[in-house]
């Protein structure tokens, strides 16, 4: 059998799952609520936050709460729950191998989750970057934006993959979602206490403004952000001696911590979320290929 025919069944499962998920009420509602949440952030923070902080605030919903719950619900395997099991039987009694089915199904879930994220966030970022806004002290760089998008996509992929693995192991949809949600929040909070942005999405969200300001090359780096802040304060005080009123400084957001995460590394973060993702997919495939349906 040629590769094209071999791929046909995998693509069929992928397209079917993609279509089913895209037309589900969960995805539609999530898309609408995500859009509203981003609009709310833009409306309230437009004048008071600089570019990188504003973009980081938009991404907060995907890294911390509440959208991780939706990613988990969508990711819970195609074989968790009675109805899902029956439907998967309908596919797996045809000439499709289990790993083909699993990978196609996983890919469909990841694409849907990332699709919703990108559809909502990318237009908002473009708006922030290209709109006529007050000069930003911490402007987001092109590299920083792409790196931030990549990292959030990686975290969402990890959430889907973990849900996929747990769904394959436990087979009970609601139990899986509840366990994973609690586990995710607890572990992220504990690791976040140690400021481990490589493992904790809570820490990662705090480090996001720093990542958004990173340049393509080290030589292109603008003076250190902290330094820039000090210089700005100095200029303001000099201006006040001559009776010149400086424009009100942007309100400093206490949540984001530029000093603690100044050494954030894209490589470390990618490995921190990428390796567990690959392990989850591998383990899910191994478990699924060895178990009864």
């Amino acid at each position: 059998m040629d590769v094209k025919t071999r791929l046909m069944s995998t693509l069929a499962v992928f397209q079917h799952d993609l279509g089913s998920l895209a037309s589900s009420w969960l995805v539609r509602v999530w898309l609408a609520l995500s859009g509203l949440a981003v609009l709310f952030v833009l409306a309230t923070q437009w004048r008071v936050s600089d570019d990188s902080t504003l973009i980081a605030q938009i991404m907060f919903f995907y890294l911390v709460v509440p959208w991780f719950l939706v990613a988990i619900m969508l990711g819970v395997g195609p074989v968790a729950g009675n109805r899902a099991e029956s439907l998967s039987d309908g596919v797996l009694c045809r000439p499709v191998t289990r790993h083909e089915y699993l990978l196609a199904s996983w890919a469909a879930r990841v694409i849907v989750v990332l699709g919703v994220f990108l559809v909502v966030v990318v237009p908002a970022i473009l708006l922030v970057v290209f709109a006529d806004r007050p000069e930003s002290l911490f402007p987001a760089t092109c590299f920083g934006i792409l790196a931030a998008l990549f990292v959030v996509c990686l975290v969402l992929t990890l959430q889907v993959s973990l849900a996929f693995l747990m769904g394959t192991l436990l087979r009970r949809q609601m139990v899986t979602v509840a366990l994973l949600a609690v586990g995710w929040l607890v572990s992220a909070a504990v690791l976040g206490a140690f400021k481990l942005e490589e493992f904790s999405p809570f820490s990662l969200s705090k480090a996001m403004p720093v990542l958004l300001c990173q340049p393509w090359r080290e030589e292109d780096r603008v003076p250190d952000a902290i330094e820039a802040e000090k210089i700005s304060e100095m200029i303001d005080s000099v201006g006040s001696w001559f009776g010149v009123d400086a424009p009100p400084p942007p309100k400093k957001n206490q949540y984001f911590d530029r000093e603690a995460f100044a050494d954030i590394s894209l490589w470390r973060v990618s490995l921190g979320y990428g390796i567990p993702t690959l392990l989850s997919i591998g383990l899910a495939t191994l478990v699924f290929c060895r178990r009864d349906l």
Partner: protein
Amino acid sequence: MVTVPFFIRENGIGNPGLIRKLCIDPAVRGEFSPKGAKIEADRPNNLLGATPVAQEGRLYVDAAIQTERLTKVFGSRLIAVNDMNLFVPKGAIFGLLGPNGAGKTTTLRILLGLQRPTAGRAVVFGRVCGPNAVEVRRSIGYLPTNPQLPGHLRPVDYLDLVGKLCGLRREERKPRIASLIRAVGLLSATSQKIKSFSTGMATRLGIAASLVGDPPLLIWDEPTAGLDPAARRFTLDLIRELGKTRTVVVATHILGDIDQICDHVGVMHEGRMIFSGPMRDMKRRLRRDEFTLEIEADDERLQQLVGGISELDSIVAARATVQTVTVQIAPEHERAAILSEVLKKVTEAGLPLLSIHSGRNETENAYLQLLDEDEAHGFQRFELNSARQTSASHRNASNEG
């Protein structure tokens, strides 16, 4: 008898390619024994013959399905299939009978690779079944009980999906789907979503889905469950028609269906195959020594008739209901001669005979008798199995020695 010596793997059921090569001559049909290393030729075609249950360590060339000591235990608690040997000849319409929980569905799911056997193995057209046995599933069209179909799709979309899963190219897939939709009578429902389908319509769509890949083996699990009489008739006729060109396995506990369509039958009870063979063999097992006469008469005259019949040698007569008399003939006597004596008595009494029949439905009787016998064996079953295993281990030990 022609004996052709050859070697095959001791642990396996043999190399199907090699076996096919050796069996170019269609007259060579029979069994392969890894230990005996020989082919027995000039045997009757298994499809027509009465070789009911596969023997340990042998492969029937004409087998569509063969299982060897198949066992499935769920979580060390539930024994769903117990040391089961099944043989389904190619081209047969095979009825897999058994009460609920007998292990029929589990057996079928093992054949499809949806479940793994705890011990033993299953072979379909010479290929071992398993989760990644794609070629096995390519040769099977499966219809589950009350199929769960994706409700958001329309029938054509669903069949298209199944066609793609079977690896059919577009130019082959589209016309086949159109003809199948027409064949199962869903032409008027193509614009509806599947979630609006009745049970009968969903079953018909499931039937069409099982036929999309044009497989040589159909496995249908309770295809008539929940159907109205017209849909049931349609399904049974379809099975009969499909059975002319392919092997069909129908798992059910509805005896009437099996009786109408199957030429071979296997009876499962508590996970074991207690009978497997041609339908006629099963019916032959029935003891038909009891007859029922339906006679129109008042009580007194009927009682006189019963007394008269009872005077005959080797007969026990009794009144069953108001108008019926049962006549039981001793097994060693010629039934036709004795029945003619009985009928003569009825004529002499001047009573109108409304009907005469032998017990209940034949298949039902045979089936219930098999279940009764299996229940009655009790501990003996265990001893038979133990003896078989002991002899097998002795044989292995002597071979190794």
